[in-house]
């Protein structure tokens, strides 16, 4: 099933507020899903007979931000955070990409992690992928069973894949930079 058909089914079921008016064209087109609907949309995509997206290939966060004010004009994106879901179906052998967008900081307060709903109840692997996104990109996933850092040590400060991340000068006496 191609993305147009999938989108029209989703549009009928969830409305334009949840899944947008049309898929976004690109080499891999995607559907932008509203953060509040992502769990419902995911569950539907997994369980529906026509979709059967039982496999979450990848879930990752992406920080759109240009820290250098001189280059900010050419950057071409408003500062925001994206969570990207790559789905595929083992039985029907089709693929789909979803995106959820949100602010870089909760209520635009520096240091307050943005919140997104967790899909770890839909696909088991989302548990670890979301922990990684929390660890490296700094996204707080609501209702996640065990949101701890996974790759960095528990006492690490900051989230390395943020564009404005400051590399630490030292960590427990080990010199950085």
């Amino acid at each position, binding site marked *: 099933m191609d993305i147009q058909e999938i989108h029209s089914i989703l549009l009928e079921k969830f409305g334009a507020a949840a899944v947008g008016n049309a898929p976004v064209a*690109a*080499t*891999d087109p995607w559907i932008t899903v509203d953060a509040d609907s992502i769990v419902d949309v995911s569950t539907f995509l997994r369980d529906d007979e026509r979709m059967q997206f*039982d*496999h*979450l*290939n*990848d879930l*990752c966060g*992406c*920080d*759109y931000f240009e820290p250098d004010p001189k280059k900010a004009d*050419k*950057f*071409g*994106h408003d500062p925001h955070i994206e969570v*990207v879901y*790559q789905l595929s179906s*083992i039985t029907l*052998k089709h*693929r789909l*990409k979803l995106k959820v967008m949100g602010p870089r900081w909760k209520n635009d307060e520096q240091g307050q992690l943005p919140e997104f709903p967790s899909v770890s109840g839909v*696909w*088991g*692997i989302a*548990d*670890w992928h979301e922990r*990684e996104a929390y660890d*490296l990109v700094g996204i707080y996933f609501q209702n996640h069973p065990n949101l701890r*850092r*996974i*790759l*960095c*040590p528990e006492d690490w400060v900051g989230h*390395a*894949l943020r564009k404005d*991340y400051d590399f630490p000068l030292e960590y427990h006496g080990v010199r950085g930079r």
Partner: protein
Amino acid sequence: MSMQVEDPRVVEFDVQTDEMLVNMGPQHPSTHGVLRLLLRTDGEIVHECTPHIGYLHRCAEKIGENLAAPQWIPYTDRMDYLAAMNMNLGFALAIEKMVGMEVNEKAMHLRVFIAELGRVASHLVAMGTYGLDLGTFSPFLYAFREREIILDFFEEICGARLTYSYITIGGATHDLPEEIEIPDGLSALLKIKKGGRKPFFEVVEMFLQWLEKRIVEYHTLLTRNAIFIKRTADIGILTREIAISYGCTGPVLRGSGVDYDLRRDGEAIYTRMYKDYDFEIPVAPFEDAPRDAVVGDCWSRFYVRMMEVVQAIRLVRQSIPKYQAAEGTHREPFKFNTKLPKDEVYLETEAPRGQMGFYVVGNGNAEPLRCRAKSSCFCNLSITDKICRGVPLADVPAVVGSLDVVMGEIDR
């Protein structure tokens, strides 16, 4: 307060010991690198197994945001360092998909040749180290003896033995050699004179013929070994549903009875490489499995890998005449400072350990905005807790070893 026990036999089954936390790793030899497992055990039985990862974390993704795409290829080598060629291929294909480049026939068959030879080398290590996990040392030595010769070939081809950076955007860095010196290891094994020179593909064929006979011996040594079967069959059972939900891929998924391989079911840019090839995809259950083996157990996962070696040898054989007949160059130019378009691609390829994905976001610069590597072992490892519950402590290395994880790829 004393308790009166009426029937002493009841006590036998009711007895409970205190739960104990056992730390295994990160320097434990059977954890394949630096994996730390925190086990909650009741006597011998594991109640919970929590993997702690990140000891090899280098944040390759952040490094990728500061490098041009061709510069990041050496970093992909260091992810799955036992199958570096397949890692190179995954990333090169992702960038080719992004810039809309299609490599020519010659480079395509060259890549199949290299990737499948890499798969053989990787699965040989998987077999050897799995034997090591279960306490038998000799398969490990045999596996490394064979792998050594493949590494000798790779050294002749690109100069490196472990981190090749050979397959690159647009093809491969060098063409295959016409003629090579027969590797010392191979001449010793075949009992021929040292130092002779022969055409490259002839030497490869000599090696493949030799390897094919050895695989039968490995089956006698390990796969059909009564002790090996006792230690692996019906242990660490991963059901089909959990395997799919937890994103398991590669031999782990196929060992659970799911017929899915990206070389056949993947995206067009990848499957086009394997279009004219004739190969089978081994999937559990197997007709010749021992009586105790069930779908999704450690034995099935191991056997899928062994069967894949046979198929990979077939693919290497088929690729040689195709490569020789193909026209064109082994590498199409891709400038080092090529600006990536404002676009984003995700591409997964079938690496020996599962589906390795690369997600690249371009923003008009040579350096990508986001360079994400989705690791197959990362997903495969996440089910450790599910399949380790209820097994005796001594079986934990058998279960974790059957997943065949490489920490370099998990931690990136």
